[in-house]
């Protein structure tokens, strides 16, 4: 382990660590605009310059490996001057309309300029060319704000394995975007929004739909209801300066009511419903394979809650589409149930109901507008806002979020169990499914301590577990002794690893959970910036806390879901479920 000093303080780090890693260990802050945890450093922004004794020129801390006896200085006159010049040059090209920018007060470049004491831009000159790309339902891009840091390229290529973006052209004309500067809609993009989540400036954001929600709320003829995804409650607080992992379920509910929604509901309700449908689907597939010896049944079954993952599978692995659960995502199940079952209950025409979703996700905006998502006869989910957009909406309404009292969600679509909460975390859908499937087939309590399937929890990219089924109820005896093997992947490059392992025969599973974004939905592309692993872990922990604090923690115990089946759907995978809650997938050409 090489030893070095930074600002005369000694530190020891593993060989291969960079100066930036060493500084982090000492809690010393070196600014950077291009560094991205878990990716190969690119040294593109030049902001992390430091001085190393014996070196003629400053070096970039993010890409410079440490060596034994190195003496690093981060705060010399030369370094302050160099960093300032670098940022001044970035500002000279950057089309900064800060006060009216989507990233006002949430911009890393703006903050850094302030931190470095830059009060004017001494190099007036040509600005980067403006191309607006509004071609997709989820994301908007503005090249005039791009500072060519390449974080989006790293996250899209290395973390997600999609590679929609790359520098096009060269020199001053370099444009970060899809092939030949085509609109994003013309190339393969899964709409996950990880690029928007890590963009340091206002170059990539979600399509802002806040105004559409205000319009619906102001329309006296519309009955506007809202659903909130499980991951929102562990992250929304960050929009109001709370530390990551602050649970704000009660305050969020009050805020939504104060904003003016006619009913405040929970995507958790349909997360529970998903478990009953998906769990039954898994058991049906297993029965077909094991009892009926049906060779056509596709196993392993993959989860289908994550629309970014669905987009990825449709483009990159069309051969596994039969393996995807036919269950719609909880967001879409909610829309379909709200505009049929709930509409009947309150005596409203589904045309007069507006369903708004609050999602940690940008791909949900894409999912909601898929033409097949109109099982109720009208568009099931009308408007999708990200966590960040909800944060803005609360601010626009002049609500002092942190001093709000807690309140409860409305019945019946606001009633849920702890199993639904954990849908937010990687491994959570798997755990929730296992809690229910195990109890259905054994009639016994789920035997895991605190109900957690620890091997599939946490930030490891690919996780595996197995559950042996013994002492089964008579109708499930065909599964007696079967060891159910499961795998969990998050981040699409990890999903790819699992699929390749299955295809090569290296691994065999019955059930695989894939969440598109690293950490699961808590790390979604629509979550408050900035999401690193510490933030992910804090949100994951908060979600488990939420689950553990519940009386009911298994989806099949949800009384409102039980009532929905009794009154309306009749049975999982029944005719009504098939119509409202299930979907199909289409192979797409990869570009």
């Amino acid at each position, binding site marked *: 382990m090489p030893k070095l000093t930074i600002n005369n303080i000694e530190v020891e780090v593993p060989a291969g660590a960079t100066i930036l890693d060493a500084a982090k260990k000492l809690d010393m802050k070196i600014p950077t605009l291009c560094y991205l945890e878990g990716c190969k450093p690119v040294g593109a922004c030049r902001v992390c310059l430091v001085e190393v004794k014996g070196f003629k020129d400053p070096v970039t801390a993010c890409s410079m490996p440490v060596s034994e006896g190195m003496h690093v200085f981060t705060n010399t006159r030369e370094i302050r001057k160099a960093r300032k010049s670098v940022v001044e040059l970035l500002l000279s090209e950057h089309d900064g309309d800060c006060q009216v920018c989507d990233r006002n007060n949430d911009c890393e470049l703006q903050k850094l300029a302030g931190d470095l004491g830059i009060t004017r831009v001494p190099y007036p000159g040509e600005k980067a060319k403006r191309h607006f790309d509004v071609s997709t339902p989820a994301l908007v891009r503005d090249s005039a704000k791009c500072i060519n840091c390449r974080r989006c390229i790293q996250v899209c290529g290395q973390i997600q394995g999609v*590679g929609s973006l790359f520098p096009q052209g060269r020199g001053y004309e370099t444009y970060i975007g899809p092939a030949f500067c085509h609109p994003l809609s013309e190339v393969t993009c899964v709409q996950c929004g990880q690029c928007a989540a890590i963009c340091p400036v206002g170059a990539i954001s979600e399509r802002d739909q806040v105004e559409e929600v205000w319009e619906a709320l102001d329309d006296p003829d519309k009955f506007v209801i809202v659903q909130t995804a499980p991951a929102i409650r562990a992250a929304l607080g960050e929009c109001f300066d709370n530390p990551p992992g602050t649970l704000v379920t009660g305050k969020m509910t009050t805020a939504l009511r104060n904003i003016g929604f006619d009913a405040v509901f929970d995507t958790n309700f349909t997360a529970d419903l998903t478990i009953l449908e998906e769990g039954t689907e898994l058991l049906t597939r297993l029965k077909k394979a094991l009892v009926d010896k049906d060779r056509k049944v596709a196993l392993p079954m993959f989860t289908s809650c994550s629309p970014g993952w669905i987009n990825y599978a449709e483009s990159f692995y069309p051969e596994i589409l039969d393996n995807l659960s036919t269950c719609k995502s909880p967001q879409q199940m909610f829309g379909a149930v709200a505009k049929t079952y709930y509409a009947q209950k309150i005596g409203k025409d589904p045309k007069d109901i507006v369903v708004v979703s609050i999602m940690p996700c940008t791909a949900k905006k894409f999912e909601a507008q898929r033409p097949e998502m109109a099982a109720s006869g009208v568009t099931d989910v009308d408007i999708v806002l990200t966590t960040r957009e909800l944060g803005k909406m609360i601010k626009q309404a002049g609500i002092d979020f942190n001093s709000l009292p807690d309140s409860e969600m409305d019945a019946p679509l606001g009633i849920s169990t702890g199993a639904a909460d954990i849908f937010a975390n990687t491994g959570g859908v798997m755990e929730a499914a296992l809690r229910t499937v195990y109890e259905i087939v054994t009639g016994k309590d789920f035997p895991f301590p605190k109900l957690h399937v620890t091997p599939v929890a946490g930030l490891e990219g690919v996780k595996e577990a197995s559950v042996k089924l013994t002492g089964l109820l008579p109708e499930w005896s065909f599964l007696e002794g079967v060891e159910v093997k499961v795998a969990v992947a998050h981040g699409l490059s990890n999903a790819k690893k699992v699929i390749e392992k299955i295809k090569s025969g290296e691994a065999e599973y019955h059930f695989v959970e894939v969440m598109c974004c690293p950490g699961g939905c808590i790390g979604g592309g629509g979550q408050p910036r900035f999401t690193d692993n510490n933030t992910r872990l804090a949100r994951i922990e908060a979600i488990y806390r939420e689950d553990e604090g519940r009386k009911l923690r298994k989806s099949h115990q949800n009384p409102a879901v039980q009532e929905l089946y009794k009154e309306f759907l009749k049975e999982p995978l029944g005719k009504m479920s098939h119509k409202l809650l299930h979907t199909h997938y289409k192979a797409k050409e990869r570009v």
Partner: protein
Amino acid sequence: MDKECCTCTCGAEVPESELFARLDETLNEYHGKPGNLIPILQIAQVLFGYLPEKVLKYISKDLNIPYSEVAGVVSFYSFFSTHPRGKYLIRVCLGTACYVRGGKEVLNSLKKILKIDVGETTEDRLFSLEVGRCFGACGLAPVILVNEKVHQRVKPSKIADLLAEYKSSEDTEGELQ
């Protein structure tokens, strides 16, 4: 590569399926070799005369390199073209030496006479116009390249004559190379 070049710029029409078959051979030959993208693109450009999107998408899929990255490489190097080119490709150097010695004026004169812009091809498919950044002949500045031939100390006023020579060589079926 020179042989391939002759077969493909002589004007004889080769069916597209044949071109793709030859591209497949190249892809097989370079399969798994690190840094194979650029040589493959170079050969593809010789085969097809330019790099159509269809070919680039084909290469991207075969090499499992994102299309955005293939496009990024193609758009980075001025020697790659995504547009069909004329029989004579004129590259005007605008590197520092050529620029200060009147490269820009040479370019403007070419644009005016050929009635095309940079990146375009004349209607008779005879001339294409591109800009280059230094051909390593700074002592002869300003220079232009017509296919492989370097023309040195080019004067804007002499451009018309130069082009006329190429045109007349067409009429007599000869090559000026």
